[in-house]
C-alpha cells in the first residue's frame, strides 16, 4: 500500500516536472544569441518550440502586411496558409525559401527587406498556423478584432504537398 502511494506521488511529481522541462526551450527570449545562419542548412527553424519567436512572427505577419494577400492565413490573393495544402512544401526551409526568394504569381521576394532572424520568426508562425507546433507554444488571440479561431485552438493539420493552389 505504502509503495503504491509513493509511486503515485512520484509519478505525479515527475509528470509535473516534465511539463516544466518543456518550458526551457519554449520560454527563451532569443534577442540576439541565435545562430541564425546555420539554421538554413539544418532544415530546422531556430524558433522551433520557441513561443517568443513564434509570437514575434505573428506580430511581423501583421506588420509586414502578409495578411494583405494571405488574410490572416485564410487566403485571398495569396494561398491560404491555414489549410493542409502546401504548394511549395511545408518544411521550415521551404517556407523560408518562399519568403526570401518569393514565388510566382505574386509572392514578392523579401530578400534584403526582412532580416533572416525575422524571416525565421515568420516561418515559426506560419508553421504554427496549421498547428505544426506543440500546444504550449502556439499563440493565442491577439488584441485585435477577432478574425478566426486563435492558433492554439485550431485543429492541427497534416500538410499535404499539392501543386495547385
Amino acid at each position, binding site marked *: 500500500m505504502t509503495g503504491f502511494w509513493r509511486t503515485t506521488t512520484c509519478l505525479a511529481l515527475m509528470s509535473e516536472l516534465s511539463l516544466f522541462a518543456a518550458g526551457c526551450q519554449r520560454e527563451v527570449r532569443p534577442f540576439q544569441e541565435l545562430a541564425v545562419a546555420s539554421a538554413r542548412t539544418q532544415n530546422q527553424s531556430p524558433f522551433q518550440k520557441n513561443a517568443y519567436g513564434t509570437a514575434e512572427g505573428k506580430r511581423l505577419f501583421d506588420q509586414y502586411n502578409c495578411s494583405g494577400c494571405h488574410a490572416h492565413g485564410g487566403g485571398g490573393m495569396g494561398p491560404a496558409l491555414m489549410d493542409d495544402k502546401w504548394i511549395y512544401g511545408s518544411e521550415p526551409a521551404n517556407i523560408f525559401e518562399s519568403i526570401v526568394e518569393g514565388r510566382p504569381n505574386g509572392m514578392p521576394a523579401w530578400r534584403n527587406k526582412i532580416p533572416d532572424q525575422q524571416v525565421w520568426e515568420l516561418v515559426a508562425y506560419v508553421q504554427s498556423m496549421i498547428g505544426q507546433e506543440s500546444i504550449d507554444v502556439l499563440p493565442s488571440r491577439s488584441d485585435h478584432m*477577432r478574425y478566426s*479561431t486563435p492558433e492554439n485552438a485550431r485543429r492541427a493539420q497534416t500538410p499535404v504537398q499539392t501543386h495547385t493552389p
Partner: protein
Amino acid sequence: MTPPDAATMRPPDTRRVLDVSVLPRTVFGHQGLIWWGTAGFMVIEGSIFVIALVVYFYLRLQVTDWPPSLPNPGLFYGTLNLATVLLSLLPAYIAKTKAEKFDLAGVRLWLTILVLFGVAAVVIRAFEYFALNCRWDDNAYGSIVWTLLSMHTIHVATDVVDSMVLLTLALTGPNTKTRFVDYSENSLYWYFIVAWWVPIYVTIYLMPRWL
C-alpha cells in the same frame, strides 16, 4: 513584580465543573459547525457570482450595442431550466424536513426526486449553450455570457454529483445522525444554487433585450 496569573495557586480539592455531556451531538442549522463551513463557501461563491455580474454590466458600458452584433440568446431552454430548478425547491425542501426528523425513508425518496430534477437541469443546460447564439471567443459579451453560464453549470453539476453520492450513502448506510445533517445541508446548498440562477437567468437572457 510577578505576572498577574492566579492560576499558579493550588486548586481546591473538589473542582467546579461544567458538565456538557448532556449537550446534543447532532444539530441542524447555524447552531452546528457544518453550517458555518457551508455558509462560508456560499459567501465566497456568492461573491464570485456578484463580481461576474458586475463585470457583465461593466462590459455593457464599453460598447453601444448589446449584444454587440450578435442575436439575442434564445429564451426557451433558459426559461425551462428556471422552471425546473424552481420546481426542484419542493423536493429539496421536503428532503430537508425529512432529514431533520431523521426519517431515512423520506430522505431516500425525496433525495432521489431531487437528483432527478438535478439531472434534468444539467441536460437542459446543455441545450442552453446552443441557445446562447454566440461563442465565448466572439467578443467580450460572448465571453462573459459563457462564463456566467459555465460558473453556474459547474455549481449545478457539482451539487448533482454530491446529491448522488449522498443518495448512495442513504441507501447503503451507515446512517449516523451527523449524516442527516449532511442531507439537510445538501438541500441548503441547492437553495443557494437555485437562488443564484434567478439573477443569472435575468442577466443572461433578459438583459440583452432590455439594455
